[in-house]
């Protein structure tokens, strides 16, 4: 009976890993550290990092925004097609929240980041990532640039713009980490979705995930960039055994650690009725996919409650990490009309 040996290349490449992001000694006045990090970040990158409602320390904050209906001419407005719910919670063990979520319903963008490193720099990194990418996309992903493109070209452009914005955010976080010793070694995971013309382009780095619920089946669309996932892929450990592993929470890719980083980017077709779930590992480490699925099926008519229930379930299971959940409900399809009639219509719009 042939049986796969431990792949040597895997061990060679991955075993002698250095654990880089160790915590820099003892944090003192936590707010002081964060303040300084933020100030540096602001100095360097403008006030984008300023308006982060997730950046409170030690405060249990659950933010839920709901998309407002706003009409714009031509095709179905994204704000009418997508219902977006975000909840971010520090969990039950951590004093503060290093996760950050941001959404731009008007351009169909949702971003979630899970910061790490240092005592407070983690939330600086995740805050910089979400605000930099959300505002960067708002500048780059404009009607003027995409309005005339075919669906395929728009999808291709969304991928390249996403990669570009990820690089910009990575550079910003990396530079801040280099310049400010308080922020040294900070980094963040990322998952970002851009919805347009019945497709979504997702970019991710690290172990924050995107799931899709379609026809009551939950499917994980992103594959973690983590040591455990690499072990699963190489056949060293089965998915079932992975729950028992001691090597959780080790990501192999993160934003802000190296001068360059590549996001994994894919485009998927979106169907009316889909519900997308973006989450930090605080959710999927604490509760099984089956429970996530069950909750989403049982409570799908009330997405605010679904999001709260998911966070609550993670907390009831121990809540050992920050928990962030974003739900994107596709209320109707959002095709972009093209061609002659679209032009005529837009004249009268």
């Amino acid at each position, binding site marked *: 009976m042939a*049986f*796969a040996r*431990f792949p040597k290349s895997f*061990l060679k490449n*991955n*075993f*002698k*890993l*250095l*654990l*880089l*992001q*160790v*915590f820099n000694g003892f944090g003192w006045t936590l707010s002081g550290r964060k303040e300084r990090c933020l100030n540096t970040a602001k100095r360097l990158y403008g006030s984008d990092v300023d308006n982060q409602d997730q950046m409170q320390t030690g405060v249990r904050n659950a933010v839920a925004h709901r998309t407002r209906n706003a009409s714009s001419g031509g095709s179905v407005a994204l704000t009418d097609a997508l219902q977006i719910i975000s909840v971010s919670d520090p969990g*039950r*063990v*951590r004093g503060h929240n290093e996760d950050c979520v941001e959404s731009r319903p008007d351009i169909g963008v949702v971003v979630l980041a*899970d910061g*790490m*490193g240092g005592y407070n720099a983690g939330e600086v990194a995740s805050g910089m990532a979400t605000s930099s990418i959300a505002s960067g996309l708002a500048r780059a992903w404009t009607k003027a640039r995409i309005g005339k493109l075919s669906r395929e070209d728009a999808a291709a452009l969304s991928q390249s713009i996403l990669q570009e914005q990820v690089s910009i955010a990575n550079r910003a976080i990396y530079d801040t980490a280099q310049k400010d010793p308080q922020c040294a070694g900070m980094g963040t*995971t990322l998952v970002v979705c851009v919805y347009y013309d019945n497709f979504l382009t997702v970019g991710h780095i*690290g*172990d924050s995930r995107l799931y899709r619920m379609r026809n009551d089946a939950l499917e994980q669309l992103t594959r973690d960039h983590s*040591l455990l996932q690499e*072990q699963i892929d190489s056949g*060293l*450990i*089965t998915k079932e*055994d992975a729950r*028992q*592993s*001691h*090597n*959780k*929470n*080790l*990501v*192999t*890719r*993160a934003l802000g*650690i*190296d001068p360059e980083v590549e996001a994994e980017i894919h485009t998927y077709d979106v169907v009316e009725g889909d519900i997308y779930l973006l989450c930090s590992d605080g959710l999927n480490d604490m509760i099984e996919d089956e*429970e996530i699925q*069950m*909750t989403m099926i*049982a*409570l799908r*008519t*009330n997405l605010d*409650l679904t999001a709260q*229930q998911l966070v*609550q*379930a993670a*907390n*009831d*299971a*121990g*809540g*050992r*990490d920050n928990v962030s959940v974003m739900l994107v409900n596709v209320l109707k399809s959002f095709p972009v009309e093209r061609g002659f009639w679209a032009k005529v219509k837009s004249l009268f719009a």
Partner: protein
Amino acid sequence: MAKLILSVDGTVLKEISLAKERTTLGRKPHNDIQVDNLAVSGEHAAIITILNDSFIEDLNSTNGTLVNGKPIKKHFLQNNDVIEIGKHKLKYFNDTPVQNAAADFERTMIIRKPSAAAPMAAPASPPPPSGAALSDTLTNMRPMAATPAVPPPAPSAAVPAVAPPAAAPAAAAAPTAGAVREAAIQVLSGAAAGRTLDLTKNLTTIGKPGVQVAVITRRPNGFFITHVEGTLFPTINGATLGGQAQQLNDHDLIEIAGVKMEFFFKP
């Protein structure tokens, strides 16, 4: 750090710490663990350790390797596993808690290849600085971890819906909600009158979809009811349920979508 205790016929021969990436076991002297017995192959097995996880692989030995009495080719070692090679036994100890590690252990961290980094530390050095103090005596980590082993107090007592952070460890100790008393609802009116529904799942929805639906959640500190959909909210003992979850007490009367039902704890 994980370790193996080598014994034969109940006599402990030696203790081996799994500090290396690859620890070999066999009859020949170049093995890290040499077992000089003819039942043992020259190169019998190898133990691969990656950070805190260890795997054993049989290297096509003549007489095979057993773990907990079963022949294996490759096996992900768990605490207290017993490896048998001929008459020799190796017991595997790894006290690193899987989930209950001190909070710092749980933090997401980035790892990368040594080429990109500065000096090489000992291969399996534990991640956070606190690990240095903890590595020898991992068993002593429990008191430091935020999760005491004691089960939470009887959940039927009135517990605030949102436990303050200080009360969190109790919840953490009961991840499966095993300590919650069993409960059920009995339908009192309507077509299904007399029927009983056991609340065995973490979420149970009741009512009429599209008209009025509520959900009963089973949590470590009891059962809670929350309104899900519909313009009318259900009533509990005649009082209308608010937007928030409400804890259910024994013999509470729920009215939803025109149907009355009673919540009760099972004896």
